[in-house]
């Protein structure tokens, strides 16, 4: 079971880390100052969540590894995040909608994980949930604001929806190891979670007067370490320092 728990902790950690890295790319490029600060604040919270998950994964690891080793010394095929979180940041509408999908997912997931039979995970979820709620408030507000404003803003967020929508089912993917964790009450039933998520998303899209696409390429593979080409470039950027100067500290 330890192996399965580590696998799931890495799924959670890698998701938050890659999402955080994409948000951090906005630093100095936000549409205006307050939003620049908000984007990087969310990035910092997500980095904090990733750190908590990595520390726990390192703690139960059979090898002598640190949280930093897990974040900075694993290669693409060892990352377990869904492809959604590694996609390029795109324009502000694209980042906003991607963030909304992710925040809505995390708020529902962490509320369930607070009841996990695996105590360290329940504790991290309780802490992360408080922060994810703020993130959700912000990303929801922005979805509404962009969708219901100018024709250009609406067209941009509709285009983001067309691109991103079929990357979202992968958030709920499981494999044999995760099914075992469900049976042991370590993690919640992802199909039930998906229904809740879909309900919230449908409601918001309706308020935003946006149309979800009806067909598209269905993303899959992150849980097995099969990623898009974007992750390699992200890791090259993010991991450069630790790989060039092993053990370097700030």
């Amino acid at each position, binding site marked *: 079971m330890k192996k399965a728990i580590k696998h799931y902790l890495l799924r959670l950690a890698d998701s938050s880390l890659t999402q955080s890295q994409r948000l951090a790319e906005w630093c100095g490029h936000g549409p205006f100052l*307050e*939003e620049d*600060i*908000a984007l990087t*604040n*969310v990035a*910092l*919270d*997500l*980095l*904090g*969540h990733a*750190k*908590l998950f990595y520390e726990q994964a390192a703690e139960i690891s059979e090898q002598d590894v640190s949280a930093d080793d897990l974040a900075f010394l694993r290669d693409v095929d060892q990352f377990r995040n869904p492809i959604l979180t590694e996609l390029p940041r795109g324009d502000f509408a694209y980042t906003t909608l991607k963030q909304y999908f992710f925040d809505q997912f995390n708020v529902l997931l962490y509320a369930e994980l607070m009841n996990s039979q695996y105590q360290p995970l329940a*504790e*991290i979820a*309780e*802490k*992360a949930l*408080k*922060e994810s709620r*703020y993130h959700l*408030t*912000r990303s929801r507000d922005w979805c509404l604001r962009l969708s219901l404003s100018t024709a250009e803003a609406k067209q941009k967020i509709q285009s983001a929806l067309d691109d991103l929508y079929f990357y979202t089912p992968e958030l709920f993917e499981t494999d044999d190891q995760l099914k075992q964790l469900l049976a042991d009450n370590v993690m919640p039933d992802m199909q039930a979670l998906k229904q809740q998520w879909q309900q919230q998303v449908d409601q918001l899209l309706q308020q935003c007067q946006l149309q979800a696409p009806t067909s598209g390429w269905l993303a899959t593979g992150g849980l097995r370490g099969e990623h898009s080409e974007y992750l390699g470039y992200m890791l090259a950027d993010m991991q450069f320092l630790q790989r060039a100067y092993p053990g370097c500290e700030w």
Partner: protein
Amino acid sequence: MIKTLKQFSKAQIMAWLDAIKDPEIPVISIADLGVLYDVQVEKTTVEVSILPTYSGCPAMDSIQEDIIKHLQKQGIEQVRVKIINSPAWTTDRITEQGRQQLHAYGIAPPQSKTGQPIACPQCQSTNTTCISQFGSTACKALYRCEDCLEPFDYFKCHV
């Protein structure tokens, strides 16, 4: 030879730790902020438990260093800082004194306990607007007073 720590009481150490301020809001102590959770005096080591505020808050590293340095100055050589996630820190842990210190410093304290509207720390008007949910640090939001027109930080509720 390692000195035993029998001569130091928990209350004494707690009192020393009261001098440590939050590095980003240097008017409030980590005790009043609710970050300082517990002190255990062991045979050769003092263990200080702290509750991190926001999970990505960079101030936590600096608080850890400050605790170690400060206790070493008092003659306690071996200090261990333990970060614990449960119970989770909330803004309800901020003491009344801490809330007053925040207000005097120009930061509107969190209103989850009182249920009062958010008041401008300059002119006390409650005619205020949120400009951004996120401010200069993870724990603050940015507000503006619609009467005196001054922008101000609000220490947002975290419960």
